C-alpha cells in the first residue's frame, strides 16, 4: 500500500479509522508540517498528543490549490485523491416497484409519507400503468354499440 489516510501515524504506520479521506500522504511523509505552513486556505493542521503527531485536513476549507503537493519536500502528498474524488454512499433504502412493470417508483419511507397524507392506499403503479388500469375499467364497464362496431371492446 503506497498511500495512507490522512490520520497516518508516524510511529505505528497505521491509518486512521475515518472512512472518508480525501487528502492522503504516502509513507515518505516525515511530519515536517511544511504543507501546514504553506496552506493558503488553512485547511491543514496538526495535533501533538502524547507520543504521536497527527496531520489534520478539512475538506470543506480546502481550496484544492495543490500548494501542499508543490511544497512537500518528501513528495509525500497524494493529491489525486482530492482531484479525482469518488462517490461516497450516503444512505441506502428499500425501493418500491410498479406492480405491473417493476419500474422503481420510490422508497418505502416515501411511501409511508404518502400513506400518512392520503385517505386511501395509493396504487403502487407507474403513471403509464395507472392509466392502463383506467383503460381496462373502460373496457369492462363500457357497453357501447359505437365501440363494439369499431371492435374496441
Amino acid at each position, binding site marked *: 500500500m503506497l498511500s495512507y489516510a490522512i490520520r497516518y501515524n508516524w510511529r505505528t504506520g497505521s491509518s486512521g479509522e475515518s472512512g472518508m479521506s480525501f487528502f492522503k500522504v504516502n509513507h515518505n511523509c516525515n511530519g515536517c508540517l511544511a504543507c501546514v505552513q504553506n496552506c493558503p486556505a488553512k485547511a491543514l493542521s496538526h495535533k501533538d498528543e502524547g507520543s504521536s503527531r497527527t496531520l489534520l485536513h478539512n475538506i470543506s476549507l480546502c481550496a484544492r490549490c495543490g500548494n501542499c503537493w508543490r511544497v512537500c519536500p518528501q513528495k509525500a502528498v497524494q493529491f489525486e485523491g482530492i482531484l479525482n474524488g469518488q462517490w461516497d454512499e450516503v444512505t441506502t433504502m428499500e425501493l418500491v416497484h410498479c406492480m405491473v412493470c417493476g419500474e422503481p*417508483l*420510490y422508497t418505502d419511507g*416515501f411511501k409511508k*409519507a*404518502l400513506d400518512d*397524507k*392520503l385517505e386511501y392506499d*395509493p*396504487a403502487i*403503479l*407507474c*403513471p*403509464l*400503468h*395507472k*392509466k*392502463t388500469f*383506467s*383503460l381496462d375499467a*373502460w*373496457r369492462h364497464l*363500457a*357497453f*357501447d*354499440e*359505437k*365501440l363494439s362496431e*369499431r*371492435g*374496441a*371492446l
Partner: protein
Amino acid sequence: MTMNVLSINPRNCDGCGECENACAEKHSGGQDKARSRIRVVGGNGHGKLFVPFACRQCDNPPCMSVCQNSAIYKDEKLNRVVIDPNKCIGCKMCFSACPFGAIGFDSTRGFAYKCELCGGDPECVKACEKSALSYIKGYNLHYIRMYESANKHYAVIRHQI
C-alpha cells in the same frame, strides 16, 4: 356550476394524437409528445379502444394534500388545480399520489407539471377533430351523460327482448 370542464369521450377517440401534439406545442414549444399533459392510451394490445387522459381537476385533490411545500392550489375561478412552478421543489409526491397518473415530471427543470386547462382555452379541444374532447359547462355534461346512459340502458333492454 358555471365553470367549464374538460370532457373526454373515448367513444369518439380514434387515437390520432393531435391533442398531444397541440398540448406539447403549447407548453414546450416543440412537438415533443413526451411533454404533453394529455396522453392517449390504448391501441396496442387494447384493441381499438383509445382513452385520452388528462388531469381531472379533482374536488379534493390528493396531489394538493400531499404537496410538502403548498405549491399546489385550487383555482376556484376556472375550477382547476394549479402547480406553482416557483414553489415546486420537485419531490414527486404529487406525481406518486395522483391516482390517474395525470401529473408529469420535468426532470431537466426539476418540477412537476399537469393540465391547467390552458387558462380556460384548452388547445387540445381545438385540435380534436373527432369531438372526443370538449370544453363545456358542467351542467351540460350532466345531460349528455344522462342521454348516453339512457341509450346504453335501452341497448341492454333491446338485447333482452
